[in-house]
């Protein structure tokens, strides 16, 4: 079976190579995949990319997709399963200047101009937040977000959606350089748990070769562990820099730090699938009619494999030796 021998695998990311893919890139560049007998092509993503579609078309074997993609796919009978959840906290947050009064409760959003990407999941999240706070669109002013940040820079928009760990840092720096400081508005802190990037593969793959899936996931999670390990920062940074040439080192360090908090917050394990968060995500999408009827998301969450992989990895991370291969191979 494939699991015994070396296998070629294509792994489609969600977005361009950057800190949000730290672990994936680490596993690739540090030879962890090879060590597991996997020859993985890691492909950058982008807004016009959809890992789930590529799974079906056979262009990819594993991929990273956001929860709303997964749920949409499921509601359209796409045979996709989740084998790990990369972000425990959704990095999608809203940046705002501290000249704006601190937003402590949802009602503080009232009257503000809020940037959203129409059709994007930031819109979904914001609507969820508003309804959670007993408000709706009329209580705020939406502003359509596009490639450039000028409206936020020029103060026409109060809150601007960013990926906390990537753009968030960059923008914070820019404004800092201009003597301004910013805060971030984190939906999670206000009870909206909307799952972000997760590792997905196809039903077919799980059934055909669960061992391979396990092996891949182990390698991947190991990559993430090492990428997130504070004492391993130099290596992690070095690797990310190879792929993300456009981000200066100091920024990168901050980005990595911030990513740690999202991927591995206290009391969680890396890759852990937060079933409740998934349920809430589904509920939100259902409430906003983004899916016609429930998809029973938990049926597609491969908790078993994930936990299994987690134990193996944390074990041989501690032993710092790769016992896994001997164990598995006959």
């Amino acid at each position, binding site marked *: 079976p494939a699991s015994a021998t070396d296998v070629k695998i294509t792994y489609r990311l969600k977005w361009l190579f950057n800190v949000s893919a730290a672990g994936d890139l680490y596993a690739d560049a540090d030879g962890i995949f090879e060590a597991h007998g996997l020859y993985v092509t890691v492909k950058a993503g982008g*807004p*016009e990319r*959809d890992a*789930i*579609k590529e799974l*079906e*078309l056979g262009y990819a074997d594993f991929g990273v997709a956001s929860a709303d*993609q997964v749920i*949409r*796919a499921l509601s*359209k*009978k*796409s*045979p996709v399963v989740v084998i790990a959840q990369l972000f425990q906290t959704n990095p999608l947050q809203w940046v705002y200047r501290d000249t704006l009064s601190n937003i402590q409760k949802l009602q503080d959003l009232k009257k503000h101009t809020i940037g959203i*990407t*129409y*059709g*994007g999941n930031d819109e979904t999240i914001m609507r969820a937040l508003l309804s959670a706070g007993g408000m709706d669109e009329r209580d705020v002013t939406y502003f*359509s977000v*596009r*490639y*450039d940040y*000028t*409206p936020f820079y020029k103060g026409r928009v109060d809150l601007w959606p960013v990926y906390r760990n990537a753009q968030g840092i960059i923008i914070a720096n820019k404004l800092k350089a201009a003597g301004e400081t910013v805060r971030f508005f984190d939906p999670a802190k206000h009870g909206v748990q909307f799952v972000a990037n997760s590792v997905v593969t196809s039903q077919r793959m799980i059934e055909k070769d669960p061992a391979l899936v396990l092996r891949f996931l182990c390698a991947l999670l190991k990559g993430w562990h090492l990428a997130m390990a504070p004492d391993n920062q130099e290596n992690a940074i070095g690797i990310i820099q190879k792929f993300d040439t456009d981000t200066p080192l100091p920024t990168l360090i901050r980005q990595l730090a911030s990513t740690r908090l999202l991927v591995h917050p206290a009391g969680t394990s890396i890759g852990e699938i937060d079933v409740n968060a998934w349920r809430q995500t589904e509920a939100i999408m259902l409430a906003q009619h*983004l899916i016609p009827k429930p998809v029973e998301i938990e049926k597609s969450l491969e908790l078993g494999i994930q936990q299994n992989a987690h134990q193996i990895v944390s074990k041989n991370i501690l032993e710092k030796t790769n016992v896994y291969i001997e164990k598995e191979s006959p």
Partner: protein
Amino acid sequence: MLYRRLYQFFIIYLLGLAILFTIKYTLRLSEYVIPAPATVLLTVAEVYARYSKDVFDTFSVAIIGQLISIGLAIFISIFGRHASWVGSFVKVAAYNVQAYPIVALAPIIFILLGDGFLSRLLIAAMICYFPLLLSMLGIMSEPITEVEHFYAATGRLRWQLEVKIRAFENLHKLATVIAGSATLAMAGTIVAEFIAANAGIGYSIRIALYQSDLSKILIALFFIGITLSCYQGFLEWLGQQAGKLWAGNA
């Protein structure tokens, strides 16, 4: 003529669908990758009203955009038609601006014009005017001696006349290009809406893309295509009429 255009468009569109569906069923792809015919029909019922309105909205911007770009192209080709310093300068400028992908220019445009209608219009015009410019430059920089000789010899060949003569002699070519450029005006507007506006079919397409809802996109394409076919037909008819009028039923 128009009827032919229309049903030919239908044929093409259906052909496209056919191909997609074949792929779907041969590769056994889920609704998520390629929707089933039924789904598409359901979606039609759901969005046709909104989309046709959107398309119309986009279309009206496109028309204005096209008019502007025609003006622009005429203007530039009049300056650029000579091999003079100014001529080449104008040309270099026009060409370079064109080389820059709108998406890259967009931020700058928004800084200068703010977002909304104006930027939308400008982007549409920018995408549409270049082909016009190219053919007009070609036409305007080529003397028509048998006609121009007299005016030149008697010192009557002011640039307006020169332009008029060359345009008239190439009426047919101009008509083709202008009619065709409608397509680009439409595409341009859509792109503009895609990256900028909060209205129009381009905007709807972007949302459909985010929600990876191919059936909506297919429907959008249908409305775009049909609107355009009609407009095309109209423009060609107009061109013929204009030709008849100007050249006296020649």
